[in-house]
């Protein structure tokens, strides 16, 4: 009976956290069912721009192309119409991954240029990739969320030197790790009702493992050339693993 009580408590916690995160994505119903109005979405400028930038990201960004290949390889082929949704979001959030519907949300009111779209799509695809390959308890285990956020900040280009300088975060020696910790913390606090201390503790506990998990890139891609190199390695993995 104690086990059943604990399970009920966990379920309740999961629902509460899900409700909290949906405040940021108001177009998703609390049950996780996104509303779809075809006429509205067809004629809304933000939505059209978002969909066009998404298309370009999937066709041209080496980061995104590698992740789409990796998803396919893992049995989670990504279809734009099914797995992406351009919506208006609250606050400064740029996007999110909704595990309940297996959808990536792109905040059409907060993404204004192609470079940003590329980064957001990469970031969210990393979450989707983690969801596809592992049992990630997004809502009830903050360490799981922290791990995926560390990986997304690390591998998406969020913390590149130019991006940090634009944010007036000037640092060089090992600054990438400082940025990853900071951005992972911010991401957790944006979508989960946890204290800053708990979120920080979770990031600290998982950092060593998750910062060094570079799948599917095999390396930390700092720019498009790195991402292209990583994609080439990914396409070569059959030969690699069968000859080691």
């Amino acid at each position, binding site marked *: 009976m104690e086990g059943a009580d604990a399970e009920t408590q966990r379920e309740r916690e999961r629902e509460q956290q899900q409700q909290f995160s949906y405040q940021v994505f108001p177009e998703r119903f609390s049950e996780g*069912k996104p509303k779809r109005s075809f006429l509205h979405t067809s004629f809304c400028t933000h939505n059209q721009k978002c969909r066009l930038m998404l298309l370009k990201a999937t066709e041209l960004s080496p980061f995104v192309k590698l992740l789409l290949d990796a998803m396919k390889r893992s049995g989670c082929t990504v279809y734009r119409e099914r797995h992406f949704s351009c919506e208006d979001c609250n606050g400064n959030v740029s996007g999110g991954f909704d595990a309940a519907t297996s959808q990536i949300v792109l905040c059409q009111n907060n993404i204004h240029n192609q470079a940003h779209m590329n980064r957001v799509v990469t970031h969210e695809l990393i979450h989707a990739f983690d969801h596809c*390959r*592992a*049992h990630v308890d997004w809502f009830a285990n903050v360490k799981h969320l922290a791990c995926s956020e560390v990986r997304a900040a690390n591998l998406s280009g969020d913390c590149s030197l130019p991006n940090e300088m634009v944010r007036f975060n000037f640092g060089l020696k*090992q600054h990438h790790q400082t940025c990853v910790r900071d951005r992972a913390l911010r991401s957790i606090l944006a979508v989960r009702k946890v204290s800053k201390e708990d979120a920080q503790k979770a990031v600290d506990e998982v950092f060593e493992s998750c910062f060094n998990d570079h799948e599917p890139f095999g390396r930390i891609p700092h720019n498009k050339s790195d991402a292209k190199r990583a994609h080439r390695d990914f396409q070569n*993995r059959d030969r690699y693993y*069968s*000859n*080691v």
Partner: protein
Amino acid sequence: MLKRRDAEGPGCKMADIDDSLWRPPRSCEHYWAEWKHCRTIRNFLHHYYTYGETPSCDQWKRDYQNCQEWEENGSPEAKQFLCKSEQARILAKQKHAPVWTMRQSPPRDWHLPLPGEGKSK
């Protein structure tokens, strides 16, 4: 974890018995390209920015030389060195225990229609 397909080669252990099917895990041009890239100023900067130290590039050069040695002369020592080097790279990546349990198959609902859509008429 992504599954590996054993379609192309016997792996280093099996190749000790019969190495006629074995070939280097990466092409020699690949090792050369990695070594060259490792030594660029840009990579030095990125590595320092990430890890707070300068990169070590010598292993890529050794791997390239061993790869060439294997391709040209079929040297078993060169093959062993190359195998050990790549195995060390893989072990270095597996040093940390994962935070989560890996799946044996993808999530069942990944391809299902969105809730409320795709109901039979």
